[in-house]
C-alpha cells in the first residue's frame, strides 16, 4: 500500500498552483485526508502533486456584510474551533465537530472535501443547505458556481481540467435563523449512511431541506421545503412519501434511514 513514484511541490500562490496543474497527470493535494488513502491504494497515480494546504490565498477568511468567504484550504478544525466567523447560527461549527475525528480535522479542508465530492461527506450537504457559492479558478480566470450546481454526482463536480476551488462564499443568515442537522453513521467519526439537514430563516424567507448521503449529490427537497415553511411540523406527515419518491431505487433500510435523519433534523427546528 505505497503510492506510485511522484513529485511534490507546495504552491505559494494560486497562479503557481495553476501553472503546475497544467502538467500531465498533475493533481492538487490539500489536506490529503481523502487523496492520501487513494494514493496508497494506487487508485490515483499522479506524476506530480501540488500542495495547497499552505497556499496563503487559499487560507483566507473574510467576514463581509452579506457573506463569510473562506479559502479552500481552511481546515475542518478551524470551523470546529470557532476561528471562522459564523454565517448561520453555529451550524458550520456543529457540523465540523462531527467530521471524522480530530486528527483528520486538523488536516482535512473544506475545499478538499467539496472537490472530492463524496456523497457521504458532511460539507457537500451542509453547504448545499446553506446555499453557498464556490469560486473556481483556472488559467482562463475565475467563475462562480452555486453549490447546487457544483456537485453533479458521486465524486463528480463541475470542476474543469486545470481548475481549482479557490474559495467558498456562505451567505449570512438573519438573527431568526434556525437549523437542523442529523447524521446517521455507524460509529463516531464515520461517514454518513444518511444525512438530514435544513436551514430555516423566516427573516430572509429562506427554508431549505436537504437529503444527504444518497448515491449522488445532496438532494434539495424543494416542494417539501415550501410545505415545511408553510405548515411547520405538520408537514412531517408527508415526509415518508417524499423520501420514497426521491429515492425510488433505495432499499427499505436506506429509505428508513433517510426518513429518520430528515425527521430528526426537522424536529430540531420544529419540535413536535
Amino acid at each position, binding site marked *: 500500500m505505497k503510492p506510485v513514484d511522484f513529485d511534490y511541490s507546495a504552491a505559494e500562490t494560486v497562479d503557481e498552483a495553476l501553472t503546475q496543474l497544467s502538467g500531465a497527470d498533475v493533481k492538487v493535494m490539500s489536506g490529503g485526508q481523502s487523496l492520501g*488513502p487513494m494514493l496508497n491504494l494506487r487508485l490515483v497515480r499522479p506524476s506530480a502533486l501540488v500542495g495547497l494546504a499552505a497556499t496563503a490565498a487559499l487560507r483566507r477568511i473574510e467576514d463581509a456584510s452579506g457573506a463569510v468567504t473562506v479559502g479552500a484550504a481552511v481546515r475542518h478544525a478551524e470551523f470546529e474551533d470557532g476561528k471562522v466567523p459564523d454565517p448561520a447560527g453555529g451550524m458550520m461549527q456543529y457540523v465540523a465537530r462531527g467530521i471524522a475525528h480530530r486528527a483528520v480535522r486538523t488536516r482535512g479542508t473544506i475545499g478538499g472535501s467539496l472537490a472530492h465530492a463524496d456523497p457521504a461527506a458532511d460539507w457537500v450537504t451542509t453547504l448545499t443547505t446553506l446555499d453557498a457559492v464556490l469560486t473556481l479558478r483556472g488559467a482562463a480566470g475565475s467563475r462562480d458556481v452555486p453549490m447546487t450546481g457544483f456537485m453533479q454526482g458521486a465524486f463528480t463536480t463541475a470542476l474543469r481540467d486545470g481548475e481549482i476551488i479557490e474559495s467558498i462564499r456562505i451567505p449570512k443568515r438573519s438573527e431568526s435563523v434556525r437549523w437542523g442537522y442529523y447524521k*446517521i453513521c*455507524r*460509529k*463516531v*467519526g464515520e461517514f454518513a449512511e444518511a444525512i438530514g439537514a435544513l436551514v430555516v430563516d423566516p427573516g430572509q424567507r429562506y427554508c431549505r431541506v436537504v437529503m444527504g448521503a444518497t448515491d449522488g449529490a445532496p438532494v434539495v427537497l424543494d416542494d417539501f421545503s415550501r410545505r415545511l415553511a408553510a405548515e411547520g411540523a405538520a408537514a412531517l406527515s408527508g415526509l415518508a412519501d417524499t423520501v420514497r419518491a426521491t429515492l425510488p431505487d433505495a432499499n427499505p433500510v436506506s429509505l*428508513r434511514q433517510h426518513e429518520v435523519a430528515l425527521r430528526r433534523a426537522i424536529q430540531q427546528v420544529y419540535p413536535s
Partner: protein
Amino acid sequence: MAKDGIGARVIRKEDERHLHGRGRFVSDIAMPGLSDVAFRRSAVAHGRIRGITKPAGLEDRVFTAADLTGVNPILANSGIPGFKTSNYPALATDKVRFVGECIAMCIAPTRAEAEDVAEAVGLDIEELPAVVDSLDARRPDSPLVHDEWGDNLFLTTAVNGDIDDLAKTAPVKVSRELNTGRQCMHPMEGKGVLAYWDFQAGQLVVYTSTQVPHMIRTGLSETLGLDQAKIRVIPPDVGGGFGYKCVLQPEEICVAWLAMTRRRPFRWIEDRREHLTAGANSREHHYKLTAYADERGRLLGLDAEVTVSVGAYSVWPFTACLEAAQAGGNLPGPYDFRVYRCKTFSVATNKPPFTPYRGVARPGVCFAIELMIDAIAREVGRDPMDVRAENLVQAAQMPYTNVTGKHYDSGDYPESLRMAAGLIDVAGVRKRQASGEPDGRRIGVGFSTFTEQSAHGTKVFASWGIPLVPGYEQATVRLTPDGSLEIRAGIHTIGQGLETTLSQVAVEELGIAFDAVRVTLGDTASTPYSTGAYASRGMVMAGGAVSRASIELARRIRRIAAHLMQCSEDSVELKDGAIYSGKASISFADVGKAWYLRPEQLPDNVDTMGLEVTEGYKPKVDSGVFTYSTHAAVVAVDEDTGQVELLDYAVVDDCGRMVNPMIVDGQLIGGAVQGIGTALFEESPYDVHGQPLASTLQDYTLPGAFEVPRMKMGHIESPSPYSAHGMKGVGEGGAIAPPGAIVNAINDALKDRGVELTRIPATPERILEALIRAEEKTASEAVA
C-alpha cells in the same frame, strides 16, 4: 504473599519501553543492505494459473513457485480419521484459492519499489467459479476448492447422543439457525518478518512477529529442509497476536528462503490491506440447533449441526479441524444436560485459511448456546436469567464432567451470574425498562455465561490429532553473580504482560526483589522449547514452569546460604529481597558471588548443579483448567435507526488465582472490546465471486473508544486443584461472551416487537431490516 509476588497489582515491566515508543518491532529493525519484499497476490478467489510472466529486465527481482525448488508446501494434517489433506504452497502453484493468495514474491530496496515490480508481473489466470457460502459448499453440485477431494469437506465429525427419544417426549422444543460473520483479528501490529544469514553462527536468523517462535523454527525447518540447529527464530516485540501469529505463514517461508538462498537480509511487513483481505480468516460459523427442555426451561438435550467456513487450506500446526473440534466440544457450555448430538462440518471455501482467533470457536458457540437459553426462556415465559441460573452446573456438582467429557475442575458458575446481575443492577434495569425511556429507545438486558478450557495440554491436542502436541512447558531460572535473577522461557509475550507476571511468580517462590528479575522470552537460541503462546496457556504453563524451576533454585540457594551463614538449611528463609536465618541475613548477591566467583567459600560436597535450573511442568490433570465467566450487557436500541448503545457492561470472571489482578482486568477488558466488535461491528463480507468487500478500515468497522462503555469488573477466585498456585488461563475469555450477552440484550429490548436477531454482527442495518420486516408482518396481519 511476597511483596510484588502473586496477587500484586505490579506495574508492567513492558510498559516503560512501550509508553516511550522504545519498543522494538520487526519493522523497527534496520540492517545494511535490507531489501523489502512485496507479494503479487491473487485478485481472484478461485482460478487456474496458466502463466506468470516476469517483467522484462526485472527477472532477478521476481520469484515464483517454480523458483522455490526444494521448498515443501505447508502440510497440516489432523490425525482424525477422514481428514483430507491440503497442500498449502508458499507461492501458488497450479491454482489460486483465495483473493490475496501469494503468487509471486518481488524484491526491491524499498517497499514502494517492490510494489512497482509486483504490479508489473504478468498473470494469466483462468477464473473458476468460487466456493463462497459454506452451506452451498456442502452441496454435491458445488465447485471444488481441491479438485482431487470429490467434495469440499476437510472433515466431518459426529457426537451421536440419543436425541431421537428425547425429541418425542420433551415438552419444549426450540429451533434456531444462527450465523456469525467472518472476521479479521487486527492486532495493532500486523505480521512482519525479517531474515538474514548469520555467517558467524552459520545460521538463518529470522525475526518474526509471532506467538510461537519455537514452532516457527520447526515449521521453517520442515518446509525449507534446513536443520533446526541452523535456524534461529527471534520474536522481537509483538504488537498483539490474537491467534493470527500462531501459525506458520507462507510469507515467513518466502522471506526465510530468500535470506537462506541469497544470504542477504530481506523483510516483509504486512499492510492493513493485506491483513483485511488475505487475513480475513476467523469466526465464520453457521449453526442449526434444536434444544429440548421441560416446562420450566430446564435444558434436556441439544441437537446441533455446526458448519465452519474454514477457507482454502489447513494451517500449520493447528490444522483445519481445530475450530470445528472446539465448536463441537464446547457448544454445551457451562450447562448441565446429558443428551447431545452434534455434527460438525469443516468446509473448504475460497477464502483465507482459518486461523484460531482469541477464544477459538467459543465466541461462536457461546453466542449460539446463550441465544438458545434466552429463546427457551421466552418460550416458557420465564426470565432468561432464572432459566440460565437453573441450567448452569451448580457449585455442589464440582468437579463436573459434562456431556462431551470436559472436566470442569472448580468454581461456582451461578454465583458469577448473580454477581454480574448485581453489578448492572438488573432489578433497576427491569424497572427502567417497564417505565420506558424518555427518548423512546428500548432498553434490554442480556447475559452470557461460559466456561473456557484453558491451558489444555497433551491429551486434548493429541485427541485432535494436531501435528504439534504440547507437553511439559519448560523455563530456566538463573541467579547471576550479583544476585539478580534471569528467567528464560520459550513462550512469547505479545502484549499479555508475561515479563511481569512470570517475574511475580519467581518473586513469590524466591522472595527476590521484583526489580532484580529480568525475563527473556521466545528466542530459540537462548530459551527452552515451547509450543508458544496460545490457548490461554501462558500463565498456567510457563508460570507453572517458572514456579517449579524457582522452587528448585530456592532449594539450591538455601543450601549455599546455610553454608555461608553456618546454619541449618531448614532455618533459611528467602523473603523481602534477602536471605534470612533468624536475625542473620545475607544477600542474594552473596550466594551468587560464592558460587561463581568465590567457590573457595563453598564446601567440597557442594551441589554441582549450580544456580541455574531448567524445569518442566504441566498441571496434574492436563485436560485443561476451566475458567468461567458471566458478562452482562444493558443496551438501548433506537428502533428508528437500529443503533445500539451499550449503557452498561459487567464482566465477572474466575481465572483461579490471579497473579496480577490489574493485568487480568486488562486482558478481560481488551478481550471484551474485541467481543463487542464481533457482536456489533466487525465483518469481512464476500460477494458471490469470493471478492472481499472490506479491504480498508472504512469498510471494516472496529469498535472505538466511543463505542466501549466503562466496564464493571467482578472476580471470584476458585483456585484450580490441578495447577500451580491454582492459576487458570485468562487471555482469551474476554472475547468470548460479548456477542451472546449483547445480542440477548438486543433481543430482550425488542421482544415485544416480534424481533429476534440471529446473526452477528448485529449491525444497525440488520436490526432495522428485522424491525421493518416485523412491521410489515404486523401490517399485513392487521389487513388480513
